[in-house]
């Protein structure tokens, strides 16, 4: 296989994911509506409860909507990553996962292509959300829209790879609902997405530590700072490191010689 053929493979997988996303109208709409509900209702209600003082990267006092917007972008990425892996579980039951796996390309590469396809869909969703968020006067500097792209790709890779790891562990579709409850909600709430961490620290030191150890916090902060044209090395390093670890684990999970697939097949 030549590099050109590798490129065609990735493009083919991305194209399919995009087409599927557009055709699955429900998934398309709910992916957009979910963060908007948070923005329109949750944030509106909370802006009077929770004051946000001036903390970087913001230079002035910001309304609560502006504070949680990057967290909601990260939430889009989180749901999208989990949903891509949900489709891996679903795909495998339908057999089309096996269609992917009989391709002559190396398996790690096929998983990476699948991952990039999910990231591409997630990035488009994030930009659509940011466009609609202008209605709530969430107006980062124009350069921020460009600077956020690498942050979106990196956080999308990390969360998508985490989803892949989970999909290799989950045996049946039913179990996945549990994973959603035990992964998505704790990750989202124990993070800096909805409240600044200094307030969490005041309230509960243990929870603050959990938030600090949560990779989703770092994905949120990476996106938040990038959106205002700033680069923060610590979140970037944590997200990149976690992405690599999760990708390595996913490759192990789908390795034909390592047992996870074999164990699953045996259970069928």
């Amino acid at each position, binding site marked *: *296989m*030549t590099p*050109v*053929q*590798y490129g*065609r*493979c990735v*493009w*083919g*997988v991305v*194209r*399919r994911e995009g*087409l*599927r996303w557009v*055709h*699955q109208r429900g998934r398309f709409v709910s992916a957009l509506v979910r963060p908007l509900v948070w923005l329109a209702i949750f944030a509106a209600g909370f802006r009077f409860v929770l004051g946000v003082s001036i903390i970087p990267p913001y230079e002035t006092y910001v309304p609560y909507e502006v504070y949680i917007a990057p967290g909601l972008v990260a939430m889009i990425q989180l749901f999208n990553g989990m949903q891509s892996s949900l489709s891996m579980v679903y795909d495998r*039951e*339908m*057999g*089309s996962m*096996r*269609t*992917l*796996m*009989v*391709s*002559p*390309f*190396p398996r790690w590469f*096929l998983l990476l292509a699948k991952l990039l396809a999910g990231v591409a869909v997630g990035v488009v969703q994030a930009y659509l959300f940011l466009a609609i968020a202008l209605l709530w006067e969430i107006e980062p500097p124009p350069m921020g829209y460009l600077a956020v792209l690498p942050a979106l790709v990196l956080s999308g890779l990390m969360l998508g790879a985490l989803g892949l790891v989970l999909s290799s562990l989950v045996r049946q579709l039913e179990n996945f609902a549990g994973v959603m409850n035990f992964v998505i909600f704790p990750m989202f709430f124990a993070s800096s997405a909805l409240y600044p961490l200094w307030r969490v620290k005041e309230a509960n030191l243990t929870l603050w530590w959990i938030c600090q150890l949560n990779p989703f916090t770092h994905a949120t902060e990476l996106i938040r700072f990038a959106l205002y044209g700033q680069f923060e090395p610590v979140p970037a390093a944590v997200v990149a490191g976690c992405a690599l670890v999760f990708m390595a684990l996913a490759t192990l999970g789908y390795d*034909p*010689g390592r*047992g996870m*697939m*074999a*164990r699953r*097949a*045996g*259970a069928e």
Partner: protein
Amino acid sequence: MLDAADTTTPALAVSGLSHSFGARRVLDGVAFSVQPGAFTVLLGPNGAGKTTLFALITRLHHASSGSIAVFGRDMRTESSAALARMGVVFQQPTLDLDLTVEQNLAYHAALHGMAGGEARARAAEELARAGLADRAGERVRQLSGGQRRRVELARALLHRPALLLLDEPTSGLDIESRAALLTYVRAQCAERGLAALWATHLIDEAAPPARVVVLHQGRVRAEGTVEDVVRQAGAADLADAFARLTRGERA
């Protein structure tokens, strides 16, 4: 297409293949080969180990022991070369229902690194052969079960494999579609010199001319032409032979 070496190397060579899930031994020393250009039926009752065998041949996971080679390329060490020469129709439907026939085929072409123009030309060619040329732009959801199977077959042939694997391809089809599919695959083998391994539990799908591998309780019980297998079993016909070969308990 076929080069000189292919006339002597088996399209598929399975030897000493054993596989266990925990304490349960699903395949036990399975050995057989599929010759280039031969239509071969893997015949076995439900639970014989056919699905596991297909999972191993398609590299879903590795076998506990033994080897699988496609045109001399070992599935463990040269899986890419082996998979490139293989086309697969899985037992479960694997098309994206909301995508068009063309889009489904384009996806498969990309998974084999094919260029867009070439992929479109081959897709048109395969769909014309399968009598589906006018359905290319339709969503798969709008096709009948038999038509979907033929699309899957066209997809499996898109990258011009020399070995075609079909895992109970007629399951879920009505009698008419079943017969049509079987006739079509046999014709493709004859016309293109394509080797096929067709797994089934239905004896009538193994009508001559065909080679037959009888699998029962994880072991090969007979292998050869239909006539050979009938003779080996000392039976009157294939149905009788199959009944005798699959009656015995594990030794």
